């Protein structure tokens, strides 16, 4: 089993969700997050004094999949989230040791 985590631009969330629904994914967890990458935020002027918006708002998606569909989900997110501009975000895959569905107690792939 794999955990796919993606940090993407907030306004791309709908596109990503649609793409994942199309490939038949059962569930997504979404969190509002803030952070910075290589750009280190951006500079603005407020009442004549400069300041840096250090932490840019993003959304983080978490998706659990079986080993076979991980790459497909990964590719779908990358494609849907891309604008070609700075700050499009990242997607990564991590292995998962165990998963349990709380209601039924199903474990492993059955719980996905």
């Amino acid at each position, binding site marked *: 089993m794999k955990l796919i985590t993606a940090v993407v631009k907030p306004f791309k969330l709908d596109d990503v969700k649609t793409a994942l629904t199309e490939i038949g994914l059962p569930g997504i967890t979404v969190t509002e997050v803030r*952070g910075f990458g290589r750009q280190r935020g951006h500079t*603005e002027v407020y009442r004549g004094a400069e300041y840096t918006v250090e932490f840019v708002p993003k959304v983080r998606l978490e998706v659990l999949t079986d080993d076979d569909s991980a790459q497909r989900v990964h590719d779908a997110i990358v494609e849907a989230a891309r604008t070609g501009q700075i700050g499009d975000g990242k997607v990564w895959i991590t292995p998962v040791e165990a998963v349990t569905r709380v209601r039924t107690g199903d474990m492993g792939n059955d719980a996905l």
Partner: protein
Amino acid sequence: MSNRQKFIALTLLTFISLIAVGALTHHHGDAAGLTTGNTADFLGSSTGGQGATSVPVSQVGINQLANESGHLHVAINFVWLLITGFLVLFMQVGFAFLVTGLTRAKNAGHMMMMNIAAFAVALIAYYAVGFAFQFGGVAPVANLGGASPLNNIFGHGNAGVIGLHGFFLQSGRTYDVGVLAFFLFQVVFMETAGYIIIGAIAERISFAGFILAELAMGAIVYPIYGNWLWGGGWLAHLGASLGWGNGAVDFAGSGVVHATGGWAALALAMVLGPRIGKFNKDKSPNAIPGHSIPYVVVGTLILVFGWMGFNPGSTFGATDLRIGVVAVNTLLSACFGFVFAMAWTAYKYGKPDISMSCNGMLAGLVAITAPCAFVAPWAASIIGAIAGLLVCGGVWFFDHKAHIDDPCGAISVHGINGAWGIIAVGLFADGTYGDGWNGIKGPVKGLFYNGHWGQLLAQIAHVVVGFAWAWGVMWLIFVIGKRFIKIRVSPEVELEGLDLPEFGVLAYPDFVLSSSDVGHAPTQTGAVVGPPTTTYSSGEPQSDERSPQ
């Protein structure tokens, strides 16, 4: 037909029949309003008309008519004075939104509490002594009729310095309809000066220090200076004593209200010192963005609306038809102020700055407050445009040169532009209004219309004396006051936010407040606090939490 459809049909039928009943009955009274209010109403309201059907053609009848006319004249003016006073009262809401929006969410409760407490505390101080100091010797106000009991001023002839009737609206027989209506209008003006200072002392003053500041404003700083301009005091008599035009002229209070508030705010900001994180070690300023731009815009618009009472109401009567000119001049100046501040920030910083544009609109309002009755619309436009630029320059100056922390721009909006408004009278007053102002024959005329420096000199005296008084007295009160009370909160409290330590409640308890601002505690509860040493603009992260992206 289902039951549901029957129900809908029946309901429709009911409403149609209701409309039909209303349309078919043609009996009406005076729908055009042409016959309501006539001789019968006059005879019923005036004395001596019992049973009569027409006014007697005699001196008695003429006197009756004259009495009634005079009563109506004053009544209309009372209504005008009170309604415009209520509008000025509503400006409190605008100020509350404005200054709370321009500061951080962690202090929003403190900001709002200061606004409403200022109202109550300063009003009581003004009721007890302030009003008497200011207007105790103002003499009768023509538009409000009657023989005013406010006729006792300390200081001889042209040198009046303080009024002495009207303490607790009682001393000197001041329990009087005219005096109390006048009090309502004047107390809301004092309130305006009272909450101007909040903008400059925000996010760091202790509540006790704040109460001291409001008591000083309501009892001493505002009323005594107000006496010199509006209460029959010596600055208003510079025309009679030194031959300077019509004496110092300040129609609705660019100086008396706004500059006084602005300079008092300057003194307070200097004694308090800047917020933690506002200035770096090399004294360069950091931006500390406010938490709600929508609050700022709503507050500004409410203030514009309230100003429609502030300036036109200062005629003290609707029978002075100059109110039309006053209102339009006020709007023109406000809009020119906004546009010039918007254009300047766009030119200088690349984008129009919303809060500075709003400050520009307020700057235009402040600057036109003294000249609004004396100038033509074109001059009002110029006054507003210059005000819009002055406020941008002022905010820049206090940030980058004077290193005085003024979170809401109160000093630039009210102090600098109050002074500019006073000067503008001495330049642009066109001589169409103000005959007999301050007891001087002839209308108010500025340098550009009669080539004489007299009026301008009187206005400059108003600016200089106003600064020395408001800044000096407030500075003195606070320098002495801080020996006895704690005027500023501790650094820990300032970083955590003033809401919980000062009042035990958060403005926004359901939200986790972000920590990316300068001087901001990492979290609302259990914060690790201490003055930040890193600078905000260096691009270094201040938190160890890093979200990958």
